[in-house]
């Protein structure tokens, strides 16, 4: 039985550990501490936890002020509201002055499920990536999520960390080493490359196994840093395989697929098939079934991989 951990749970655990290690870490939440898991930090360090209420603009603005006074604030809410509602505060009060604010947002993507379209952030990578000074992280499982939080705390500057609600299979061993800005080749392959991020990495691995049954050799790359993107690993894949399929739980406009395409067209033009939501909103329903319905299932990744090979 595969071990299942939600990346938000890994976040809570990392915060609790970091709270002891670094006294400058403070945590803010906007009335969702039970859901974002910042409650684990609140329980151990109540004097360094602040609830701003349902007020995401002030969540980010207050974090900016704390950072300006030397603290390392982690600000949390759902991805939709943390990045959407507060976008302009993130731009002008955090990124422009390059302040040391970490935005750890949970409940990203379709996997939010039953709450439906208003709560399914499918644009957050795109808008966060467009901000100068912002680092954008999108971990694939609980192990990587925890390391992302540690690295974000060490890094001096704004970081956006995209986390999920649902329990997802653990892919990495405890000795896995995450580095900001480094893509990781999880599976060798010479025919086609699948570059995935977040919870889609596991689906990419399943796809590669299925393709190998048909004697198709698919390379799988985990792109957990969307910005700064690992150009070298993309250029290498573009040169060594026939094309790239990108997979993300996000709109195909502006996210991982766009970031990979930008690198490819400027360096080694090749075909890129983008899998994500097709410029549409989601809806209520079971998370995994939504992934299937919106073309994020293994079947579609197989189809797009074969499309690359048939070109």
């Amino acid at each position, binding site marked *: 039985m595969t071990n299942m951990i939600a990346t938000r749970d890994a976040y809570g655990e990392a915060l609790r550990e970091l709270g002891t290690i670094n006294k400058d870490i403070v945590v803010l939440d906007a009335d969702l501490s039970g859901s974002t898991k910042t409650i684990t930090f609140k329980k151990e360090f109540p004097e360094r936890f602040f609830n701003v209420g349902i007020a995401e603009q002030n969540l980010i*603005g207050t974090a900016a002020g704390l950072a300006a006074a030397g603290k390392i604030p982690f600000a949390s809410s759902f991805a939709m509201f943390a990045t959407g509602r507060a976008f302009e505060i993130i731009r002008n*009060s955090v990124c422009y002055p390059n302040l040391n604010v970490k935005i750890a947002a949970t409940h990203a993507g379709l996997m939010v499920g039953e709450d439906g379209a208003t709560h399914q952030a499918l644009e957050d990578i795109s808008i966060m990536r467009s901000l100068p000074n912002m680092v954008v992280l999108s971990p694939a499982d609980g192990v990587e999520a925890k390391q992302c939080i540690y690295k974000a705390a060490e890094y001096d500057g704004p970081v956006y960390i995209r986390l999920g609600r649902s329990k997802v299979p653990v892919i990495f061993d405890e000795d896995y080493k995450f580095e900001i800005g480094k893509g990781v080749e999880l599976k060798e392959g010479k025919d086609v490359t699948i570059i995935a991020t977040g919870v889609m990495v596991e689906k990419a691995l399943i796809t590669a196994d299925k393709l190998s049954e048909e004697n198709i050799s698919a390379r799988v790359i985990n792109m957990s840093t969307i910005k700064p993107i690992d150009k070298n690993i993309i250029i290498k894949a573009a040169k060594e395989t026939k094309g790239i399929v990108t997979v993300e739980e996000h709109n195909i406009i502006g996210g991982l697929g766009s970031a990979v395409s930008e690198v490819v067209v400027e360096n080694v033009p090749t075909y890129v098939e983008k899998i994500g939501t097709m410029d549409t909103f989601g809806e209520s329903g079971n998370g995994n079934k939504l992934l299937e319905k919106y073309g994020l299932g293994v079947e579609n990744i197989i189809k797009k991989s074969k499309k690359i090979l048939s070109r």
Partner: protein
Amino acid sequence: MDKYKDLKTIANNMRINIIKMLSRAQSGHPGGSLSACEILATLYFKEMNIDPKNPHWEDRDRFVLSKGHGAPVLYAALAEKGYFSKEELKSLRKIDSMLQGHPDMKGTPGVDMTTGSLGQGLSAVNGMALAGKVDKKDYRVYALIGDGEVQEGIIWEAAMFAAHHKLDNITVFLDHNGLQIDGFNKDVMDIEPIDDKFKSFGWHVINIDGHSFEEIIKAIDEAKLTKGKPTMIIAKTIKGKGVSFMENQAGWHGKAPSEEETRKALDELGGGIID
């Protein structure tokens, strides 16, 4: 003997520099800069515990110009205080200048927070005040917000927060000149009764004449003695104060004076000529 003679001289010097800066830049916001000269002169020359030689000193009092378009009054105060040379004022709003159109904490010594997008400064003040409480430091955080600015929703998110967390190390001045770009507050979007609004949000509120040093100083002292609550000093001011043809004119919110107007303004302020 006028006991505020020195502060008056400083405020007048600041006004002269505001006019010169905007005249050279040929853009910027004179009205809301001129209305806040007495407040900033008092903060920077009488009140705040600061060291121009060490602008990042951890224990310093902070000042956030939440109405960031008032940058010229802040730059005039900082230059007067010695954070940088008055020569720098000539470069306001020009390419490669450290004096951006709106305050930039990374580029300008003495600027404690990057502002310009209205409303955000008050949230930053919360964060700074909170950090002071967490670290048990006794520095105070001062801010200036505009009256049009309180129409922003984030102001009320921040106001609720400051009172809830009992941030009594916060003193905010509301530069209440009654005007915003499109006209009088009462015609654009009425903010009154503004004192009752802040009181009901849990703030200690003081109403003063924002051009009276005596009242400004008294209000700051009262704020320091107020425990368990942030203080909002509603300072009744005159937009464009000190330059007759700019006073109480919405048209002077964001317009630079012509050569002729500059000469007239400097005449009134006894500021000589533009060099």
